[in-house]
């Protein structure tokens, strides 16, 4: 039966506040993250299997387990449907179950049911915040859930339930907000008949296999099988691909879907990701990247210097130029970053440990996809890559570093927070080391993604380019073999004739109506491979006023000759100007025109 503690006179009434920590995430995501993380923590087999089932039952079918709660719900102001009872059942297999002493102790069982805001978990274990289980209350419209566990240590089957309502009054008695589904001594139920009835009512698969089953009655409306499938993949794709986790999702009478290491990449492709961070992303490609990181056995060791500098620079990489080239070409780069964890406890020595970093340029992305994984869980709020289109994965699985990061993880496992109480007192250089780990992907990318030194001919081809074909056709159009007759071509004023060592300028006989005298300019320069040859003229090339350049003129006056320019006054139709003395091994460019 459901039991609530009476509040005696002199004891304050208090509403539950635990939910404040968990308002950030969606219900689908919150329940999936919390349950699976606890399951991974309690892993006893190589692989943890999770069964998620959304079902419904007639009220009378479950009345045995709910009837004694109903008056408390009414007194607390909770409203819910009366005919059909929807429920969410989540089970884990391959775990220890809620083991340990059921009386006051540091056991998993006691902590789970009786402690709030206290965690017994440590080390490589993923979920360590005692507040996390509040999620199961928050996803129930009546703030209630049951837990059935089969314990690996003693094979006992234990059923309990917990509700977090409000302080409420019934028949002049005031009750606390927290109530338990338990026996008269506040202990779990072990009655085989009650447990079998409970299993039947809520479609529970478990028989004697160790593990935990959570049943949430009246789940909030946002909970759906599709949503939980997407949330499971979004948060646990790493654990599934790593072979740590297998998920089965079912709903009423429809067929179940199983997600595992073998089929995840195929299944993921058929899911509608609209409205999620994975919308319009080639998720199959992303998962293949993660899979390649998991399967990679050879990692390139980075040299991160001594523990006091915490720096990644070009010297941290062996053969940096080759790695840069690989990275630029879109190859995945796999690194092992050694770190040392030094506890503040006296007499302890530093522990050598490592994290692995996997990065790949992925130009099709609109922004980065960076994943930080500790002990199989995705820590979702760490973002360091700005807008770079890069796939990145940091994995902290080795025990010392997993413990270090776990000690500063936020309650909902979304970040590593250096201000976590007691964290910086626990490790030497805790804050510096944490910052270094959180930024190591960004630093690695910055070093590898340094722009290449050579000229990038096609870097802006998308913006600044012209079509090759059209260009050639255009040229052909603009240069017909025979000029159209109806276009009157401007007849040049001068003709230039090549001579040994120089040239001769004279009037074009086809040009009519020239009025004399007129002034003109002749400019010369040796041709150059690049740029405008006149602009690149140097006085050491030649000087028309000095040897060996010689000038002879006819029917003209030289007004000025200096450097590479001659100014003349043309006085008659037989005008000629001959300039000689140039270097015969170089091409000469000249301009002749009216001044």
């Amino acid at each position, binding site marked *: 039966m459901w039991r609530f503690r009476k509040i005696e006179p002199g004891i304050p009434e208090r509403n539950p506040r635990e939910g404040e920590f968990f308002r950030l995430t969606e219900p689908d995501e919150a329940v999936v993250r919390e349950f699976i993380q606890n399951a991974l923590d309690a892993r006893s087999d190589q692989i943890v299997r999770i069964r998620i089932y959304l079902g419904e039952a007639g009220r009378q079918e479950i009345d045995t387990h709910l009837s004694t709660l109903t008056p408390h719900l009414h007194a607390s102001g909770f409203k819910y449907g009366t005919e059909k009872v929807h429920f969410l059942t989540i089970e884990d297999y391959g775990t220890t179950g809620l083991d340990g002493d059921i009386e006051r102790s540091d056991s998993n069982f006691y902590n789970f049911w009786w402690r709030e805001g206290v965690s017994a978990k440590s080390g490589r274990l993923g979920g360590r915040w005692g507040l996390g289980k509040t999620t199961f209350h928050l996803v129930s419209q009546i703030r209630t859930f049951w837990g059935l566990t089969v314990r690996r240590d003693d094979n006992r089957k234990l059923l309990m339930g917990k509700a977090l309502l409000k302080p409420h009054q019934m028949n002049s008695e005031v009750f606390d907000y927290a109530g338990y589904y338990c026996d008269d001594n506040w202990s779990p139920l072990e009655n085989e008949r009650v447990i079998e009835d409970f299993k039947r009512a809520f479609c529970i698969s478990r028989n004697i296999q160790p593990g935990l089953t959570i049943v949430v009655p009246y789940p909030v409306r946002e909970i759906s099988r599709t949503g939980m499938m997407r949330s499971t993949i979004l948060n646990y794709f790493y654990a599934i691909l790593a072979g740590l986790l297998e998920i089965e999702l079912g709903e009423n009478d429809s067929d179940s879907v199983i997600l595992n290491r073998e089929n995840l990449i195929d299944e993921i492709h058929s899911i509608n990701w609209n409205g999620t961070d994975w919308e319009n992303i080639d998720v199959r490609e992303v998962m293949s990247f993660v899979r390649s990181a998991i399967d990679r056995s050879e990692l390139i060791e980075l040299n991160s210097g001594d523990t006091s500098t915490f720096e990644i620079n070009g010297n941290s990489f062996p053969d940096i130029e080759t790695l840069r080239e690989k990275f630029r070409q879109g190859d995945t780069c796999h690194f092992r970053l050694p770190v040392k964890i030094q506890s503040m406890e006296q007499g302890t020595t530093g522990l050598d440990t490592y994290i692995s970093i996997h990065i790949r340029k992925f130009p099709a992305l609109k922004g980065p996809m960076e994943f930080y994984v500790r002990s199989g869980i995705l820590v979702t709020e760490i973002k360091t890559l700005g807008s770079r289109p890069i796939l990145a994965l940091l994995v902290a699985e080795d025990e010392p570093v997993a413990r270090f990061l776990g000690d500063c993880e936020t309650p909902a496992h979304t970040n590593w927070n250096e201000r976590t109480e007691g964290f910086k007192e626990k490790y030497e250089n805790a804050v510096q080391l944490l910052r270094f780990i959180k930024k190591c992907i960004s630093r690695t990318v910055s070093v590898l993604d340094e722009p290449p030194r050579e000229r990038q001919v096609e870097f802006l081809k998308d913006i600044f380019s012209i079509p090759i074909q059209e260009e050639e056709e255009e040229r052909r159009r603009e240069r017909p073999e025979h000029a159209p007759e109806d276009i009157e071509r401007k007849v040049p004023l001068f003709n230039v004739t090549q001579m040994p060592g120089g040239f001769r300028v004279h009037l074009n006989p086809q040009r009519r109506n020239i009025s004399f005298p007129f002034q003109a300019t002749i400019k010369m320069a040796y041709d150059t491979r690049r740029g*405008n040859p006149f602009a690149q003229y140097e006085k050491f090339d030649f000087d028309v006023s000095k040897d060996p350049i010689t000038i002879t003129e006819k029917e003209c006056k030289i007004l000025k000759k200096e450097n590479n320019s001659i100014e003349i006054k043309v006085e008659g139709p037989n005008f000629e100007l001959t300039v000689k003395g140039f270097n015969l091994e170089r091409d000469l460019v000249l301009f002749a025109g009216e001044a």
Partner: protein
Amino acid sequence: MKRTINYTGRKRISRERISISFSRQNGSVVSFSLSRLDLSGLDLPSNALISVEAYYRTELKRIQLGQADSFHQILSTDLTDMGYPENLKFRIIVVDPSTKKILAYADRIAPEEPSGRKSILPVEFRDLGNRIWMITYEGDEGSPVLCINNRIPDIQNIAKRDSQFFMQVYPCAIREILTYMVFVEGVESVRDPSVDWNRDWLEFTKSMGIQPPLSLTPDDNQQFDKDEVFKWIDNVVEAFCNRYSQIFEKFVSKMEENR
């Protein structure tokens, strides 16, 4: 009028007679092939020596192809020992074996690109001190190169994707290049510029529907109109910005977010 006098009388091998292409592995240039070199009708002596040069700035690799009457095409020549194979241009030289005089040549040959588009603004990432970008004229024939400061984190991504960088840098770069092209270099013919990069950039402006003025030669007193040239440059910049109106919208959104 402008005229070039070729005292040594060497012949020009036109681009249509040559076919050069790169081979790539994982996107990087590893070798090149000269699959076609047609010297027929150029009246070259049968014993003239033919070579092809791959070059970029001061780096050069020369491959001898043999005599004019018996030279061979090359199907694959390794370029992995070159520092910047992406930037290589090619030159064909035909030399008289006794006098070493160049008899015929072709220069600045870019490998054929399968994509059908030609990039006209190369980029270099350099340390520019406190400047974000600048244009240098250090490309082929003094063509423009956009230099971007490599000290800016994530600059490659920013240069390609950031709407603020895009809208504030690229229109200015176009304005600077066209201004330089006209007022510093001078384009001696709008219809048929002799300098390749002038032709490319005029083509680029035309591709945006903006026709150039009659003259882009400041020395041309009769037809050059400075105001008209400035208006043309303005129109090109405006057309470019209009082409990327979506990026402008992003730029505006970003500015509003930052307020």
